[in-house]
């Protein structure tokens, strides 16, 4: 029998394995590169890069919840030019595809940043962070509006030749509507889900646990939401999906593949155990081996339903 092959192809990126870092949880690679070679990942997604420098939110920025983490870091960034000078050269030293997540405070920021990045070597794709719920601009995210999401994709598409991954927010009524809009406007892939909006209160002080009051929930608590939405989107669009949300173990990663993901993002799990990526890959490999599959593609979206899918939405 053939040995299982974890090689993954995602919108033109050839990845050694299906595990990518979830943006916002892995900085620009410097911290994890202290521990191991970044090529451990199939691709490395950096923390969202803004056009200009910004500070981030006041503290406390993080609160632990049952099986989850609520955060409102506020995406501190030194700006795209600083990233090109300081961050990208470090990442280029590793044999790992780099996905640059970009974010903006206005629609115009996205094509501007993309055009600047387009001139640089060593970038495999751009991820559009249209879903971060923490941005001050308007409070609500661009990604909650299908028309705005589509417009950002279209404008970035004309500013760069790089593949585009649109990262979708779960804080919407119907995520398939957003997915359809970004696909129609030229997105090469989608990644989902971003964090789910939440709030926590310290009952002793009666203050919110986060200085920013609201935050984004991540961790195993949100995995069922991510699985459902990946499955819904898989049945709606034909572009590949990066499944993200609460992946702590190889079982979680396999679950995302079965729901229709081509690649799987790991974030919160890395805070607790930076080496978890190796355990996840080992487990995925063994699963394929024991079940007699050669490639992840063979099980992608292959959840067995009790009856044919009537209405995926």
């Amino acid at each position, binding site marked *: 029998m053939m040995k299982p092959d974890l090689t993954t192809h995602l919108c033109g990126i050839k990845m050694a394995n299906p595990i990518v870092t979830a943006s916002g*949880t*892995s*900085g620009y690679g*410097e*911290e*994890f*590169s*202290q*521990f*191991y*070679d970044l090529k451990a990942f199939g691709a490395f997604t950096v923390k969202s890069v803004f056009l200009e420098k910004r*500070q*981030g939110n*006041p*503290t*406390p*920025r*993080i*609160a*632990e919840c*049952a*099986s*989850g*983490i609520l*955060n409102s*870091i506020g995406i*501190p960034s030194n700006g795209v030019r600083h990233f090109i000078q300081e961050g990208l050269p470090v990442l280029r030293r590793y044999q790992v595809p780099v996905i640059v997540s970009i974010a903006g405070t206005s629609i115009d920021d996205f094509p501007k940043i993309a055009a600047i990045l387009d001139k640089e070597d060593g970038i495999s794709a751009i991820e559009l962070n249209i879903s971060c719920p923490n941005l001050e601009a308007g409070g609500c995210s661009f990604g909650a509006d299908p028309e705005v999401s589509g417009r950002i994709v279209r404008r970035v598409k004309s500013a760069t030749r790089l593949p585009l991954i649109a990262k979708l927010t779960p804080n919407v009524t119907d995520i398939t509507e957003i997915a359809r809009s970004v696909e129609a406007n030229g997105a090469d892939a989608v990644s989902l889900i971003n964090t789910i909006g939440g709030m926590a209160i310290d009952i002793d002080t009666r203050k919110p646990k986060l*200085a920013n009051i609201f935050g984004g929930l991540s*961790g*195993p608590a949100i995995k069922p939401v991510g699985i459902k939405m990946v499955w819904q989107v898989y049945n709606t669009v034909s572009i590949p999906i990066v499944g993200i949300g609460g992946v702590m173990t190889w079982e979680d990663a396999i679950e995302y593949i079965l729901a229709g993901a081509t690649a799987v993002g790991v974030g*919160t799990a*890395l*805070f*607790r*155990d*930076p*080496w978890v990526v190796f355990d996840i890959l080992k487990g995925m490999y063994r699963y394929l081996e024991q079940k007699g599959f050669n490639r992840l593609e063979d099980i992608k979206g292959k959840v067995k339903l009790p009856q044919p899918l009537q209405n995926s939405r």
Partner: protein
Amino acid sequence: MKKTDLRCYARVVENLRICTDHYRLVLQEDRLPRVTKPGQFVNIRINTREDLLLRRPFSVALVKPEKSRFEVIYRVVGKGTAAMTELEPGDTVDLLGPLGTGFNIPENAGNCLLLGGGCGVAPLWAVADKLYGTGSKMIAMLGFQSAEHVFGEDVFRGYGAHTVVTTDDGSYGVKGFITQELEKVMSQQIDRIYICGPTPMLKAASSILEKSKAECQVSLEARMGCGFGVCLSCVVSVRKEGNIEKQRVCSEGPVFRLKDILLDDET
């Protein structure tokens, strides 16, 4: 490229309550005690509670490389630390460390003052241990809420430090805040001050020490996500070259120069 392995699986030697809400956890492992400096911390995983995702950071209170041992003092404040009280001798603890910067303790440190409040007394044990036998004179000033919260006084006395203890309610030692006593000793020649304690204590100390020529280093406590620099949760405002910037308590700290940090910001 050499990769640092911060992973450590330590064996519990002892986990004893030392006052009403503090525990002393003695751990055995070879690598960590050899490389840890006073002021550095470890990030402990709560193995028994899968729902508690994040590790808990604790400064290292003492290292005994010759015995392959180190200690942390923890205060029971929530679910994570409550779960830690269940640890028994022989259990294994998964931790990352040593993390962060340590205190700068030069060879001829001169007259040193160790100023600690509550759980902040713990990392000062390691400072006293390092200073012991170097010819430095030590004054330990320790503040607690009340008699039932007092711990570690004997450790400083054991290292030959002149030790002053205050309690807020006067139930043990001198009545009042430790910073009131600090004012009294500042007439003496003090070269270095090592500080760790709650924010109100740091603020009071900061205004008393404003004109002091002593080098003041403070170890900060912060709510952390990862403990190794990537999540950006534990930032503090720091003065740097005329600007104010956010620095990570886990990576650029936890030890900062007292005059550099902005205590009005939440710390």
